[in-house]
Structure formats: structure tokens, C-alpha cells
């Protein structure tokens, strides 16, 4: 009796979308426990918590934020390659709103007083944040317009902004790096309330995204459009509007990630901000169990865990002593493992193994 029950529990666990990311995260942390002494040590200094685990959480923030938006896009059967470039655009917009000298605005007063003043900002910080996010949303709407209304392949449509976006970001800042002295703005990426402040942003964004998709019909419609947009159309779902929405939301998330990134390095670096982050975001979503290409069922929590898996691997590799230049190779191995784990063959083999196990247990 109990054997049968444990077999069915095994089935349920394997069937859960979160099985792969949870398993992977546990495996990595286990490796750290064995091979990296002091990996789990946490320290309190000046009311801030320090340690490798905190580092993992903190460094995973941009990927998690991007992955939340990317999850919905991938669920509709699309993909957004432009998120890294949109991060750079949002960062540039924020920087020129704080210090607009580069675009030809003549600041009153003493230049030296402005530069280096930790309270100075041309626009109030809330306006800076709002306008930057708005710019990111406009970028997302542009992607959505191309995909939903002009029926351009998502990969091609978002490639346009991926390439052009960085150019736009450069253009905005006139190809220079603007340095941010404003402390309030820097708090977004550098602040601490025991834990890094950016984690609070992530928590709020996750809660918002979850409520938006699971406490309204949007989640159902997103999945439905991903699985069969024709059936969705015949059912009266406005599939175009759904697609427009998910790309806009993805842009919004990229905007937040861009603000966090520029705030933590205090410099508008249009060449570096968000570079290659789209790939990490896509990988996180895929590890989280949302299917790239065909879309359909999605899991926001899965994507968050996926991002943590990526960051935990990276941090652990550094801790073990793998050089930074070799990290991409490690990531490549991760991609291969993920693809194999989610392949049809392995999934089928899993079914066979678990039924055999179940049978043997019932026999015993």
C-alpha cells in the first residue's frame, strides 16, 4: 500500500514542472557543501548580511527580472532577443534625465557643484524612473506590434531592436559614459535593508506578475494563444492584444533590469549594460520548464528558480576556482544538459523507469 503510494508520489514529483530546476539547484548547492568550505557561511556586518548565498541572490537579480517578462513572451510561442538592448536604452534615458548636459541642456549654477553632488538630479528621481520605464515599455510595444500585427517571426522582429537598440542607447548619451553621483538613484542597485534592496524589487515584481497572470484571465489566455492561436481566435480571445501585452510587459521588465544595472555601476555604459543578458533570461525560462518555440504552459516560479540555477552555477564555479573566461563553457554544458533533460526521449524513459519502479514496488 505504502509502496504504491510512494510510487505515485514519485510520478507526481517527476510530473511537476518545478522538478528539474529544484533538482538542479539542490545538486549544485550539494556540490558546494562538499567542495567549497564556508560556502554557506553568512555574516552580519553593519546590519548587512554577507555570504555566497546572498551573492547568488543579488547577482541573479537582472536575470530573474528579465526572465519574468521573458516567460510570458515564450509562453505565447515567441521570444524576445532585445531585452539586453532595452536595458541599455532604459539606462541611457535615466542617465540623461539625471544629468542632461550631454544633450545640450545648460545647467544653471556651478558645474563643479553639480558634478559630485550626491543629491543633485535634473529631474526628480521618481520622474526619472517613470520615464525610463515608459521608454522600455514603448520598446516592448514596438516588438509586440511587429509580432502581433505584422506577423513577423518573433526572433526576427526582436532581432531588429536587439541590434538597433544599443545604437539608440549610444545615440541618446552621445556615445559617452555619464557618471551618476545621485545617491538616491544609486540606492536601487546598491541599497541594503539587511538584504540587498534590489531583492525587494524582485519580490514585488514577482508578486505583481503572479497576480496579473493568475488572478486575472491573462495567464490562461497567454497559454491558450501559445498552444493554439487559431483556436484562441475562434474562442473570442484577442490574441493580438495578448501578444502586444506580453511584449510590452517584457519591455517593462527589461526597463527595471536596466535601472538596477545602471544604478549599481553608477555609469551609463551603453555598450556593456545588459550585454548577452537575453541569453541568460531565455535559458532561465527554459530551465524553469516553459517550452521555447511552442509555448503554452508557463511557470513564473520555475523561471525564477532557473535564473537561480544559472547564478548558483556561476558563483560556485568562481568559488571552486574556474577562471571567468571558462564560465561560458560551463554554461554551454548546462544548456546541453537542460536540452537533453527536456527532450522527448529522456521524458519517455523517465515514464518507463518510474512505471517499472512502481511495478516492482507493488510486487514487493
Amino acid at each position, binding site marked *: 500500500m505504502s509502496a504504491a503510494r510512494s510510487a505515485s508520489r514519485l510520478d507526481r514529483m517527476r510530473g511537476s514542472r518545478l522538478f528539474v530546476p529544484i533538482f538542479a539547484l539542490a545538486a549544485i548547492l550539494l556540490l558546494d557543501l562538499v567542495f567549497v568550505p564556508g560556502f554557506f557561511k553568512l555574516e552580519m556586518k553593519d546590519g548587512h548580511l554577507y555570504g555566497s548565498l546572498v551573492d547568488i541572490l543579488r547577482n541573479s537579480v537582472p536575470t530573474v527580472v528579465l526572465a519574468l517578462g521573458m516567460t510570458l513572451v515564450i509562453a505565447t510561442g515567441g521570444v524576445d532577443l532585445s531585452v539586453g538592448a532595452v536595458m541599455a536604452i532604459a539606462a541611457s534615458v535615466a542617465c540623461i534625465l539625471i544629468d542632461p548636459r550631454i544633450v545640450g541642456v545648460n545647467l544653471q549654477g556651478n558645474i563643479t557643484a553639480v558634478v559630485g553632488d550626491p543629491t543633485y538630479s535634473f529631474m526628480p528621481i521618481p520622474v526619472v524612473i517613470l520615464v525610463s520605464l515608459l521608454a522600455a515599455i514603448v520598446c516592448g510595444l514596438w516588438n509586440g506590434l511587429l509580432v502581433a500585427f505584422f506577423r513577423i517571426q518573433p526572433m526576427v522582429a526582436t532581432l531588429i531592436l536587439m541590434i538597433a537598440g544599443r545604437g539608440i542607447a549610444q545615440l541618446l548619451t552621445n556615445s559617452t559614459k555619464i557618471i551618476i553621483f545621485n545617491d538616491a538613484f544609486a540606492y536601487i542597485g546598491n541599497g541594503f535593508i539587511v538584504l540587498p534592496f534590489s531583492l525587494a524589487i524582485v519580490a514585488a515584481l514577482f508578486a505583481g506578475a503572479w497576480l496579473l497572470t493568475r488572478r486575472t484571465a491573462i495567464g490562461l489566455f497567454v497559454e491558450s494563444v501559445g498552444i*493554439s492561436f487559431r*483556436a484562441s481566435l475562434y474562442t*473570442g480571445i484577442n490574441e493580438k492584444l495578448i501578444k502586444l501585452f506580453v511584449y510590452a510587459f517584457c519591455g517593462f521588465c527589461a526597463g527595471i533590469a536596466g535601472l538596477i544595472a545602471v544604478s549599481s555601476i553608477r555609469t551609463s555604459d551603453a555598450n556593456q549594460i545588459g550585454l548577452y543578458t537575453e541569453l541568460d533570461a531565455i535559458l532561465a525560462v527554459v530551465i524553469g520548464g516553459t517550452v521555447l518555440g511552442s509555448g503554452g504552459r508557463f511557470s513564473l516560479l520555475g523561471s525564477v528558480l532557473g535564473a537561480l540555477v544559472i547564478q548558483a552555477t556561476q558563483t560556485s564555479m568562481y568559488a571552486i576556482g574556474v577562471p571567468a573566461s571558462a564560465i561560458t563553457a560551463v554554461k554551454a554544458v548546462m544548456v546541453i544538459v537542460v536540452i537533453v533533460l527536456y527532450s522527448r526521449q529522456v521524458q519517455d524513459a523517465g515514464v518507463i523507469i518510474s512505471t517499472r519502479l512502481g511495478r516492482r514496488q507493488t510486487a514487493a
Partner: protein
Amino acid sequence: MTGSETDIVVMDSIDKSFPGVHALDRVNFRLAHGEIHALVGENGAGKSTLVRILTGAERQDSGTISLDGVEVVIKSPPHAQALGISTVYQEVNLCPNLTVAENLLIGRQPRKWGRIDWKAMNRQASEMLRGLDIEIDVTQRLDSYSIAIQQMTAIARALVISSARILVLDEPTSSLTAHETEQLFRVMRKLKGEGIAILFITHFLDQVYEVSDRVSVLRNGTLVGMYETANLSRLALITLMLGRSLTETEDIARQKIESGRHIGTDALLEAEGIGLVGSIAPFDLVLHAGEVVGVAGLLGSGRTEMAQLLFGIDQPTSGSMTIDGKTVKKYSPIGSIERGVALCPEDRKAEGIVADLTVRENIIMAMQARRGWFRHLSMSEQYEIADKYIKLLNIATPSADQPIRNLSGGNQQKVILARWLATNPRLLILDEPTRGIDVGTKADIQKLVLALAEDGKSCVFISSELEEVLRTSHRIVVLRDRAKVTEFAGDIDEHSIMQAMAGSEAEAGSEAMAGSGA
């Protein structure tokens, strides 16, 4: 004919279980040289499981298979082909964007100087098809031909590749017109004459009688029996399939007369000269509450186009439509849903079900779409609605949380009906609601349509089975060549509808018949 020395396939005590289902229970099946053997049964009777075992896609739990008296273990579909068993499925598994010749000879192209000898290839391909009495230009792309020709190409390929002795045809006729079906049957008879054993799976009982020599009936995983088709009456066959006698036809007839008394006098929908260039010619249509209006016509006559126009999938280029006297301004699915119009689309797989979502989600979708993004139905409301319709329509599913793709075709169709009934429509357009569905569920759906009419709803019933249209409709619209030809009401006889469907050539023929009758 039933002598064991003529049997090419002998399947003995085949047993197969899936988790929770005993799909086949000690089934004995025989297939003889040079016969067309029909396999019939309701959905879930075990037809496809039996075929999948024969074609190597599935292995039996116990029991034996012999070919020509030699026991074999069929390991995989390629192995089955090597043994001379070829299968042609309902959906053509070829490359639509290659030419017919390429499709036929791909992987075995004749070569000359190391290059493909196109001339020889096209000649060989033409010969292969000529063997089936088909004369077409094999250098054209496959998708430029009808589904029937494509299917025949698949058959020709199957025959050549494995020099097949056994041909399995899995529901080959479900997307063919009457004429195309006839063409396929000619090929089947010819192959039979050459000694090939044909296993023919179909839902159409007419075709069983038209083409098969013997018929095997499956019910709930057991073989009810094997019969000479000519000696088995149609009623007896249906009784065998269902395990109960079918007085339902009479019930439906009675129900139709009953519901016919409640047809409203005011028009619910009035279309005037509505049409779409390139799709369907302008037509007039009036629908009343409580009325079932059948649409008859051959494949490609504009049946689906008419449905899509009325539901607002397409925008009309001419004419206008009023519902309840109000002129329709916004032609869109969501607009139609708001007006109380619903459409069960023809292509259930692509346009109806959302395969990975659960039965519950599929049922509440249209209702939720009507409520919009933010007036979300709570979980308890969703279960309440889903459970209500699962019970009401007798949907066979373990629970409301089952993904709809795990359901049989008939039950999927019921879920789509439930989806629309949940929106409480006043006009229900049903495009081929019974296609590929077993006899029992078919009758359920026909009865449901009449019950809805009695409830004061208006139904448009589109079907390629004329018998079914006649049985359920109070009035029948006939389409031909993408135009509305005529309308019949009152006592409708099948013959005049067929004449209207077929058009001028048949009219000439029928005049002769009328002459002889007089």
C-alpha cells in the same frame, strides 16, 4: 474465403493494457489474401490499438501474430514495412512542397552519371500511378492536387517501398468528397484483385457496405465477431457496435417534429446579400429562434466559408446582417459572442480544442473571453461550470483537470459544445460537429441540437453527411460552388437535395429519370 490457408494475417489472443484501460481483451483477428476487410467500432473500442500493434507502433502484452503461417514479432513500424505491412493514415504523411514524383521516389531516385536522372524518375513515377489508374502530371507539387490524389500517392509509395502485401488504411476517407472516395475505392478494388490484403478502418457505415468483403466489429476491447458484409444488415451491424439496439433514429425524428412546433416567427438573424469576394457569393439568410437550419453541399461548396462569415471570422465585402433587428457593425469572434452567436469550427484539432489545457479551462474559455481579462472566474466558479457541463453532456473524462488532448474525439467535441453552451448563445453554428465521431456520440449530438432548438435557440447545422442534415433540420440550405443555390422546407426529400447539390449535369440526368418515372 474464410479457409485458414488463405489467411495472410492471423492475430491470436491479442491482449493489451494501458494504465487504467484494458484496450484489447484476447482479440482474434484474421485477414485474408485479396480481401477488403473493414474494421469498425465506436471510439475507444480498440481499433487503433489493434492497428498500432499490427503496424509495429505498439507491442502486445500477450498473444501471437503470424504472417503466412509464420509467427513473427513486429518490433517497429519500419520492421512492419519490411514484413510487407504498409499503412496510410488519415493525414497524408508526405512532403507537400515536393513534386509528386519526388514524393514517390525520394531516397530511391534513379541515377545517371552520379546525378539524379529526372526523366527516368518522372517516367517511373507516372508508371507507378498509372498502375493505380491515375493519370496526372507528376512534376507538379503534391499540394497542388486534391487530398484524394495525395492519399493515392501515399498508397502508391507504400506499395512500392515495401512491396506491400498488406495495406492498412486508417480512416482514409474522412476528408474526401464523394467523388474522391469513389476514386479511392476503385484503387482499393484493383489492389484487391492483385491479391493484396486491405484492412480498412472507417466510421462511415455506407462505405463498409460499398467496398468491404468482410467486417470485424470491436466493442470495448473485445472482438464481437467477424462477418461477411453482404450477409449482415445495417441495423444488425449498428446493434453489434453499440451493444444495444438503435431506436434513437426514431427518437430523433419524433423530437424533430416536436421541436418544429415551437419555431418563432420573428427573425433572429437576417442576412441580406452578405458575401465575401473569393470566398462565398452574396446570399440571403433568415434564421428564427427554435429552428435548426441544415446546410448541405459538397466539400468546397462554401459551407465553412458561410459559417465563418456569419461568425465574423471573415469580414464581408458586401451586404449586411442584422441580429434582433440591430445591424451588425463589428464582424469579429468576440463581437459575435457578445451578440450571442457561437461557432463550433470544422477543424476541431486546429480551431477547436486547446490541446494542452484541461477540460475545465477549455470549457470556461469562451465565457472568460466574453467577460474580458480582468473579471476573472474564480476556481470554484470554473469547477462548478465545468462539472455541470461534464454531467449534462455526459463527457467521459476522469476529472475536469484532465488535459483535453487525452480525450477521445467525440468527447473533445462535447467539450467544445460545452464551451459555447456556457456562453448561453442564442444562435449556435455547428460546422461538421460529428466528423470522426462514433455512432453513439453522433446520436447524442443530434439530440442535443434538437433539444437546444426546443429551448428556443437557433442552430445552423453543417454536415457532409446528408442523412444527418435531413434528420435534424427543419429547413435546409443548399450550397454549390461557393454560392447559395436554394432552400428546402417542410417535407424534404433526399433526392431533390442531391440534385441541387450536384448541379446542372445531374439535373439533366434527373430529367431523364423524372421522364421514366412519369
